[in-house]
C-alpha cells in the first residue's frame, strides 16, 4: 500500500489551503505531519482520506488514481482531536462497529475486538459507555475503532492534544509499538516538534499550505532545508541572528566580530541569517571559541523540568533552553555563550546553505 500525492492544490472560497504538495508515502511507514495551527495539516489529511476531493492534482493509492473516489469506497480510518465515539454504544460495540458494517462473522468480531482492546488496555471497560470513561480511555476506544479494521491508511489528527502530559507520553509510546507489525500507512498530525521526534518515522514539515521538507524525522531535524523548516521543527524556535560573512570573520550587529570556522569559510561572503538552537546556547563556556555575549534577562519560562530563558542583546533577542529549573530576575545582566561551530546559515531566500557538522550525536533537544 503506497500513497502518492501529486501536485495537490486545494482552494476553498478563493483561499489556498494547500498549494502544490507532492508527497509519496511508503507502505508500512509512519509519517508525521508537523506544522503550526492553520499550516494545512487537517486539510491534507481530509484530502488523503477522500473526505473531499482536491481542487487540483492527483491522489494515487497503490498505483490506482483515487482522486475522486469517495471516502465510503476507500479503506481508511481516522482518529480526531476530539474523542469521537458513538454515544449510545458500549466500548465493545464502538470498536466492533466498523466490523459489523463490513458484515464480519460474530466470532471473528469477538476475537478482533478482544485483541485490540487488550492492546489498548481497555479490555476491562468493554461494557461501559463512552461518557463513563476518562478522556484517555475514550481516546483509546476511538483508536480501537480505527485500528480494528485493517485500513490501508490510518490518519491521526492531533489525537493526544486533549490529554494530560503523562497519558500523552504513554499513548505515544504504545502507538509506535502498535504500528510496528502493520503494513498500513500511518499519518500523524502534530504541532509539537518534540512529539515528532518522539514518534520517529518520517516527518513532513508544513507551512502555510506548502510542504517545506519531507524525510526521515531525525534527518529533517538535523538538516532543515530552510529557515522556516528549522523554525517549525524546534521548540523553543531556533534563534535567528542576521550577520555578515567575510573571508575570515562573521559580524553580528555590526559590532560583534568573531573568526569563522573552516566549514563556514566555504560560503560566499555576504549577508546571511544565522541560526543557533536554543539548547546550544549556554551560561557556561563549552569550548574555547564560544562567543561570549552580554545580555539582559527578559523572562524565564519554566516548562516541566526545563527553563526557556528569553534574553535580549542590544539589537536581537535570544532564547536559551536550559535543563532544570532556574530563577532569574528581569533585566539581570548575564553572559551567554554562543557556540560558533553549531551555527546554521540561511541565505536571504531562506534556504539552508550550511548546517553544523555532527559530533557524535551531541546535538539533540
Amino acid at each position: 500500500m503506497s500513497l502518492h500525492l501529486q501536485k495537490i492544490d486545494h482552494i476553498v472560497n478563493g483561499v489556498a489551503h494547500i498549494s502544490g504538495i507532492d508527497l509519496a508515502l511508503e507502505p508500512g511507514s509512519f509519517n508525521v505531519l508537523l506544522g503550526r495551527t492553520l499550516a494545512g495539516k487537517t486539510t491534507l489529511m481530509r484530502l488523503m482520506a477522500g473526505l473531499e476531493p482536491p481542487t487540483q492534482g492527483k491522489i494515487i493509492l497503490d498505483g490506482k488514481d483515487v482522486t475522486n473516489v469517495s471516502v465510503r469506497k476507500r479503506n481508511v480510518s481516522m482518529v480526531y482531536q476530539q474523542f469521537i465515539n458513538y454515544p449510545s454504544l458500549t466500548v465493545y460495540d464502538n470498536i466492533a462497529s466498523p466490523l459489523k458494517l463490513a458484515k464480519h462473522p460474530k466470532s471473528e468480531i469477538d476475537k478482533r475486538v478482544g485483541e485490540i482492546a487488550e492492546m489498548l488496555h481497555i479490555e476491562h471497560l468493554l461494557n461501559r459507555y463512552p461518557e463513563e470513561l476518562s478522556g484517555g480511555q475514550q481516546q483509546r476506544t476511538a483508536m480501537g475503532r480505527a485500528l480494528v479494521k485493517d485500513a490501508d491508511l490510518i490518519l491521526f489528527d492531533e489525537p493526544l492534544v486533549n490529554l494530560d502530559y503523562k497519558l500523552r507520553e504513554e499513548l505515544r509510546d504504545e502507538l509506535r509499538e502498535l504500528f510496528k507489525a502493520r503494513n498500513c500507512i500511518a499519518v500523524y498530525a502534530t504541532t509539537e516538534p518534540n512529539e515528532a521526534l518522539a514518534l520517529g518515522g518520517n516527518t513532513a514539515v508544513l507551512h502555510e499550505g506548502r510542504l517545506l521538507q519531507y524525510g526521515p524525522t531525525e534527518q529533517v531535524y538535523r538538516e532543515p532545508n530552510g529557515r522556516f523548516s528549522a523554525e517549525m521543527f524546534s521548540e523553543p524556535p531556533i534563534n535567528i541572528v542576521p550577520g555578515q560573512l567575510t573571508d575570515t570573520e562573521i559580524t553580528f550587529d555590526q559590532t560583534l566580530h568573531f573568526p569563522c570556522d573552516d566549514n563556514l569559510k566555504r560560503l560566499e561572503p555576504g549577508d546571511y541569517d544565522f541560526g543557533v538552537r536554543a539548547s546550544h546556547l549556554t551560561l557556561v563556556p563549552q569550548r574555547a571559541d564560544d562567543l561570549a555575549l552580554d545580555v539582559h534577562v527578559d523572562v524565564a519560562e519554566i516548562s516541566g523540568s526545563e527553563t526557556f530563558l528569553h534574553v535580549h542583546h542590544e539589537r536581537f533577542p535570544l532564547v536559551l533552553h536550559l535543563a532544570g529549573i532556574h530563577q532569574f530576575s528581569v533585566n539581570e545582566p548575564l553572559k551567554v555563550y554562543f557556540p560558533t561551530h553549531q551555527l546554521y546559515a540561511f541565505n536571504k531566500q531562506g534556504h539552508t546553505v550550511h548546517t553544523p557538522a555532527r559530533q557524535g550525536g551531541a546535538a539533540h533537544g
Partner: protein
Amino acid sequence: MNNKVPNNRAWLLVLPMLVLVAFSAIIPLMTVVNYSVQDVLGPNARFFTGTEWFESMLNDSALQAAFLRQISFSLIILAIQIPLGIGIALIMPKRGWQASAVLILITLPLLIPWNVVGSIWQIFTRGDIGLMGWGLRELGVDYNITRNAGDAWVTIVLMDVWHWTPLVAMLCYSGLRSIPEAYYQAARIDRASKWAVFRYIQLPKLTNVLVIAVLLRFMHSFMIYAEPFVLTGGGPGSATTFLSQSLTTMAVGQQDLGPSAAFSLIYFLVILLVSWVFYTTIMHMQKDKHPHGGA
C-alpha cells in the same frame, strides 16, 4: 465533625425572594385551596364542605369526557410534533443566509399571540372567504368545523402543529448544531448509512433537548385554551371542549367558586404528576443504560 458555626444571615438574604414567591404563587394557590373546601354562597355566607367538591368533580361525567379529550389531544400532537420537529430540524440548512432565512420563517408562528392564531385559523377555515375552507369546498370536500366534530378536531390539531412544531424544530436544530463535525466525518469513514448516523449519533445527542421538548409541549397542550376557544368555541357540542375551557365556564361563567377551585387543584396536580412521572422515567431509563453513573 460538625463544627459549623450556625449563621442565620442566609435566611435574611433569602427573605426578599420568599416574600416575592409568596405573593406570586403561594398566597394565590392557598386562596384556591381555601375555596376548594368551602361552599361560598355570598360574602358572609360560607360553609365548610371538606372533600365534597373534589369528589363531585372527579365523578362529573362531563369533566371526565373533557379530561379524556385533553389527554388524547396531548398525545396526538406529541406524536405528530416531535417526529415532525426532528425531521424539519434535520433538513434545515446548516449555514449561510439560507439558515438565517429559514430560522426566521420557522419562528414566525411562535411569535403570534394565541388568540390571534385562533382568529387566523377561524378565518382560514371559513367556507365562504377562508382559503382552506373555500378550497376544500371547491374540491368537493364537505368540510365544516362548526357542524362536524371530526373536522373540528383535525383543524385544531393542524393549528397546534402549525403553531408549535417550530419550537420542537428549533430545539432539535440547536441540539444538532452542537454535534461536532468530526462525528459526521467519522461516520462517513466508517461507511455508516444515513439511518445509522441518525440512530447512533444524532438521536442520542438529541435526547436531552427532546426531553425538554416533550415536557414543554405536553404542559402547553394540556393547558391549551385560547386557540380552540376562538376557533370552535369548544364545539360542535362539546366535541372540542378541553379542560381549561370547562374550568373557565365553571369559574367565570357560573361563579361556582368551590367546585372550580377543587377542579383547578386536580388539574394542576395531574400536570405535575404526569410531568414528574415522564421526567423520572426518562432519567431512570438513562441510568439503567449507564449503570456506572455518569451524566
